[in-house]
């Protein structure tokens, strides 16, 4: 595939001219490359099959072969009579179960150690779908992509299925035998040679068990290590207050929010709650035309910053100077503003300070885990100085066990391992061989430990280097507990018995303690019984029903600032042209733990829309200077190490920062993470060091001249705006400033439509062709040949608030889980054949260096005058009486005419047999109420018709009407910010009908008179007039 060379200077020239006034989706669009043009006009690229990647090509052919063979076999099975099906009822019907109806259980998922409350849907004993728990403070009913995807990890056929000793299959009895023998030897000197390495742990039961173990082995040492470490957050609190505290924010009260390199809607332990609270301050409605103001300074674009009113791209090392400047200007004692702020930085700081001062304690300044402790301390001081503490910022005791600096602990552990002091190392989950800092050389140290035990979900890099591997239980398979960001404890209850006979960490710890075997249930229940005493039964019941143990949240505490932390100088900022490397968790595979999850590999990353890979993100300017095109492989030289990585020029990336994402380059742990045993992506952990785990200068970039096929989806399914004349063209995303909105609230509405003379003529003669009652009851200026359907009952519709959509992809993964959407693989994505029913379109506005970003979820618009319905020769896509554009799979013959005729490009075709119908464990995940589509069938968003049907059937059975909120679509349910609202637009009191009556409500491409049922609330942003960077 020969890519066209993009000349960024030409792009810049176009942006400086008229083109700059309009929105753009990618650099390719601005460059007006022939490939982009082709993609807009055609649905699928014509020559995209020529990927050079031999591995994916081979597995693609293999996949083809397999699906062809399967097709042949099904042909043989054809029979006039249907095969005899069996009905297999229960022997004893489980309590509360109605066959055919799902059950919902409250549980929790540990993520980064912190609990996220869940409600899990279970069909006859198999969990199928994960939702957030509305009663849980951390999720409030919302979910993130990892919650959604974790169910696929549980069913992953590549999970470790047995205990192994030196890679030979073994048994639990052999394992406990060997363990007991070793423990008996170690008991003599109090367990001095014993080490426990875990990830961050907040589980009260597990902490109690580990403490018991420490009593039995007083010399044993326990180290916690998470690669996406919150060390700086802890050290920052230590520096500011003298002890480690946990910080909790209340964004709902904030009028000014300043993020200093914090992606708080993704990485904070309370991220879902924060995203929802933040969105509450950004709702621009008729009744309340006001919103908060959000400032961001950061090195690489994040979904959090897509919401920014003023975004400042700076390298991570500049944040220190910005924090000091803000601190000095708001009056934090003992801080002097650093010299050398650039003009842009100065302007940004001045505006920030002005707004912070004006907000009177209703503001938040927050910084990210990658910033050094001193920045965290400065931010604490700023929040104190502004009077935010006690209002928008609260402090509590730490949530995690033994809070400390994890990198120090790990460093000490490796030293001990190397010195031979460690006889027994138990690694409870985690994957240090893969993700420990490279300078520690954990692998070499591990080989020096006589008995190393790895307890984990996969046979991974660490288990390959350990003596014993014990297969772990997934959190959906075990009893446990976990604390959320605010300390709220939840009981983790299993949704299914362990698929592979694994044991929970509690059962493993019990074995270590030499206790008589107890079930995980008894361990967890026993712990809380001891804690709660007489109130236990009631609390336990309520915890299992509601997902939260009552009154377990930490109480806010008073803290006071300590002396002169500000004197601590951060590392000297780099020279202007020196390159800085920044490490970030991957937006899809996170720290690598989701690397074998097909949903996560295929999920397009925000901005780049990169799938099945990671890349080095560089700024467009650097790319121009080094004459780098997307996909060019460069050598990254850093601290004597070098790695080859493909680059992507990313608009908005800080100039001297190169961002690499952790989590790729896994060894062969499964077919997804390494198809045919060859790793995908590059392993950024290879040059991550423990002294600078997040960012550092000293990076050299060299072009190799080779290229790597990066597969992105950002130019697939691009809505064609060129077909309309310039006079009619409206931007797909309509935007105004708050000021403009207040002056003209209907700015997003279509301009009065001017009919051409011929049209006027034809309307006069054919008045019956004029649409009499279009949506909203207004006289339509359009002529239509299509009938107007009456909607006597329900009329389903949706609104999506572009002002609160953060583009987090949760809806995309939720839709995939709910609707049995297959994963197609890198090769097929390259052909533009990804199957997502909902996608997040991102539109840029402005220059390459710091454009505004607008997120727009795009799904079937369920047009009242649907272009797809007209062209189907077999009536497989039809309109229904509730306004749904229904898709009848068993009628579809695969002409794809409907897709050709869809201006929104939301239809997806099964070119091959994408569904894996052979793997048994994956079948268990599928939603039984949604057809599993096979090859040759068109599919698309159905507005979750199965959920509509379930609600309708329940209501009809009881002789009732479906109440507003009675149907929640999968995307709506997942949305952290409640941006998606679904309901009956015939019910004028419904939330969706009221939102459709908002002045900002508009439909995309309504010029085509498609009359979409899905409409959008326009984007409003709130710039500070003092900055003067309005467009």
């Amino acid at each position, binding site marked *: 595939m020969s890519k066209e060379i993009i000349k960024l200077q030409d792009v810049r020239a176009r942006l400086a001219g008229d083109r700059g006034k309009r929105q753009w989706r990618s650099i390719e669009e601005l460059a007006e490359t022939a490939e982009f043009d082709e993609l807009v006009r055609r649905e699928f690229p014509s020559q995209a099959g020529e990927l050079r990647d031999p591995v994916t090509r081979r597995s693609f052919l293999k996949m083809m072969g397999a699906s062809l063979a399967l097709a042949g076999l099904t042909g043989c099975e054809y029979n*006039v*009579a*249907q095969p*005899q*099906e*069996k*009905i*297999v*009822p*229960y*022997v*004893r*019907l489980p309590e509360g179960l*109605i*066959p*055919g*109806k799902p059950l919902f259980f409250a549980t929790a998922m540990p993520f980064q150690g912190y609990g996220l409350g869940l409600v899990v849907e279970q069909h006859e004993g198999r969990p199928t779908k994960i939702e957030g728990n509305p009663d849980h403070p951390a999720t409030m009913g919302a979910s993130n992509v990892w919650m959604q995807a974790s169910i696929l990890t549980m069913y992953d056929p590549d999970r470790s299925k047995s205990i192994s000793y030196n890679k030979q299959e073994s048994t639990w009895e052999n394992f406990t035998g060997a363990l007991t023998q070793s423990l008996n030897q170690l008991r003599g000197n109090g367990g001095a040679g014993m080490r426990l390495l875990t990830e961050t742990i907040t589980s009260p039961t597990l902490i109690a068990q580990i403490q018991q173990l420490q009593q039995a082995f007083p010399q044993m040492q326990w180290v916690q290590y998470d690669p996406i470490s919150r060390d700086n957050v802890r050290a920052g609190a230590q520096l500011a207050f003298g002890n480690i505290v946990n910080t909790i924010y209340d964004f709902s009260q904030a009028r000014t929010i300043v993020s200093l390199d914090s992606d708080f809607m993704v990485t904070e332990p309370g991220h879902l709650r924060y995203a929802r609270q933040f969105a509450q301050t950004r709702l621009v409605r008729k009744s309340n035309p006001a919103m908060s103001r959000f400032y961001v300074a950061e090195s690489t674009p994040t979904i959090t910053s897509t919401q920014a009113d003023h975004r400042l791209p700076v390298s991570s090392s500049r944040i220190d100077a910005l924090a000091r400047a803000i601190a000095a200007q708001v009056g934090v004692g003992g801080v002097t503003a650093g010299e050398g702020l650039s003009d842009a930085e100065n302007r940004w700081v001045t505006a920030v300070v002005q707004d912070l001062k004006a907000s009177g304690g209703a503001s938040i300044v927050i910084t990210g885990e990658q910033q050094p402790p001193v920045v965290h301390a400065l931010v604490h001081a700023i929040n104190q100085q502004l009077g935010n503490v006690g209002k928008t910022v609260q402090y509590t005791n730490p949530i995690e066990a033994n809070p400390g600096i994890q990198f120090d602990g790990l460093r000490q552990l490796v030293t001990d391992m190397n010195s031979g002091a460690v006889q027994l190392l138990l690694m409870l989950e985690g994957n240090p061989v893969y993700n420990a800092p490279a300078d520690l050389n954990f692998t070499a140290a591990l080989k020096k430990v006589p008995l190393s035990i790895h307890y984990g979900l996969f046979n991974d890099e660490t288990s390959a280097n350990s003596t014993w591997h014990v297969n772990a239980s997934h959190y959906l398979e075990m009893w446990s507990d976990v604390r959320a960001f605010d300390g709220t404890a939840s009981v983790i209850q299993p949704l299914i018995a362990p698929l592979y006979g694994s044991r929970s960490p509690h059962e493993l710890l019990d074995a270590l303690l030499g206790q008589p075997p107890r079930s995980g249930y008894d361990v967890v229940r026993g712990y809380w019984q001891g804690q709660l005493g007489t109130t236990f039964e009631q609390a336990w019941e309520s915890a299992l029903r509601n997902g939260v143990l009552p009154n377990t949240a930490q109480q806010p505490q008073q803290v006071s600032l300590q002396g002169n932390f500000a004197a601590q100088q951060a590392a000297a900022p780099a020279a202007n042209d020196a390159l800085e490397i920044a490490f970030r968790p991957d937006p899809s595979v996170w720290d690598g733990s989701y690397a074998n999850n097909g949903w996560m590999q295929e999920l397009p990353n925000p901005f780049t829309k990169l799938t099945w890979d990671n890349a080095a993100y560089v700024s467009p300017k650097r790319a121009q200077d080094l004459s780098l095109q997307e996909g060019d492989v460069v050598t990254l030289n850093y601290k004597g190490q070098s790695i080859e990585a493909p680059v992507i020029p990313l608009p908005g990336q800080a100039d001297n920062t190169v961002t690499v994402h952790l989590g790729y380059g896994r060894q062969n742990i499964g077919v997804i993470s390494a198809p045919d045993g060859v790793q995908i992506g590059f392993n950024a952990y290879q040059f991550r060091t423990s002294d600078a785990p997040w960012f550092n200068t000293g990076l050299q970039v060299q072009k190799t001249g080779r290229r790597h096929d990066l597969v992105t989806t950002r130019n697939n399914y691009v809505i064609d705006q060129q077909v309309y004349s310039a006079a009619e063209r409206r931007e797909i995303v309509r935007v105004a400033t708050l000021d403009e909105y207040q002056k003209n609230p209907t700015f997003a509405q279509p301009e009065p439509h001017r009919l051409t003379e011929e049209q006027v003529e034809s309307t006069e003669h054919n008045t019956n062709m004029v649409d009499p009652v279009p949506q909203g009851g207004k006289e339509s200026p359009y002529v239509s040949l299509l009938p107007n359907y*009456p909607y*006597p*009952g329900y009329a389903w519709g949706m609104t999506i608030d572009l002002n609160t959509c953060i583009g987090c992809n949760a809806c995309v993964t939720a839709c995939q889980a709910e609707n049995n959407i297959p994963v197609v693989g890198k090769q097929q994505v390259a052909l533009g054949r990804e199957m997502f029913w909902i996608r997040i379109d991102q539109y840029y506005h402005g220059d390459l260096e710091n454009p505004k970003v607008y997120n727009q979820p795009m799904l079937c618009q369920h047009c009242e005058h649907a272009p797809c319905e007209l062209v189907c020769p077999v009536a497989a896509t*039809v309109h*229904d*009486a*509730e306004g*749904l554009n*229904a898709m*009848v*799979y*068993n009628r579809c013959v695969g002409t794809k005419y409907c897709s050709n005729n869809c201006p929104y490009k939301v239809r997806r075709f099964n070119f091959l047999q994408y569904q894996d119908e052979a793997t048994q464990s994956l079948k268990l995940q599928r939603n039984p*109420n*949604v*057809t599993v589509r096979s090859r040759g069938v068109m599919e698309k968003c*159905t507005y979750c*018709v*199965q959920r*509509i*049907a379930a609600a309708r*059937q329940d209501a*009809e*059975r*009881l*002789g009732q009407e479906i109440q507003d909120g009675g149907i929640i679509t999968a995307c709506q349910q997942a949305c952290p910010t409640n941006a998606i609202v679904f309901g009956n637009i015939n019910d004028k009191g419904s939330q969706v009908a009221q939102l459709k009556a908002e002045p900002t409500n508009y439909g995309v491409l309504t010029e085509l008179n498609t009359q979409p049922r899905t409409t959008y609330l326009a984007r409003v942003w709130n710039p500070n007039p003092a900055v003067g960077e309005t467009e």
Partner: protein
Amino acid sequence: MAVETRRTAQVFPRSANTLIWISILASALLFALGIGALYYFTQSGWARGVGQDITQPVPYSHQLHVSGLKIDCRYCHNYVEQSHFANVPATETCMSCHSVIRTNSPNLALVRESWVQDVPIEWNRVHDLPDFVYFNHSSHIAKGVGCSTCHGNIAEMPVVHKVATLQMGWCLDCHRNPEKYVRPKEEIYNTDWRPPPDQIAQGLQLMKEYRIRGSYQLTNCSICHR
């Protein structure tokens, strides 16, 4: 000489012209008949297994239990009013009686074995809809569609068989004109119910009473397919 040559060249007699037309017509007719026969065959009750007794691993008789012992349908199919699935009873349900009645019957050996060994009984499905059809028992019962409308008089069947083809046209017959089939709710489980002479009038009345939507909505694809 020349004439002679011309005569031998005419291999076919004049009547062949007619024969060709007849054979063309006949083959077209045969083709149409073949298609028709194939269509008739696929649509026939025989091809769909109507009337064919499906034997079960346990020789359970609806005739004995329902007509003879007057056990209500819902004693065994107890979630038929709540779920899309009318549920085949758990072994536990059988054992609620058969732990004290006919405890030694050889016919019940499989049930006892299932109970003791905790292994479910595999019953043969009689009414098998395609997987892309999402039928809901509870909705139909709530709207006055009785068991026997689709299943026939089960109470008189020692071995159950289908009485309808369960094809889409058959479903649509009712979805287009529910008044032809709906009955008063108190007659739902009466498997011997016969439509009264004024069924259409009564049906229209019941449709109003039970708020049954008309064919405009009931014939939507999305009602049964998703």
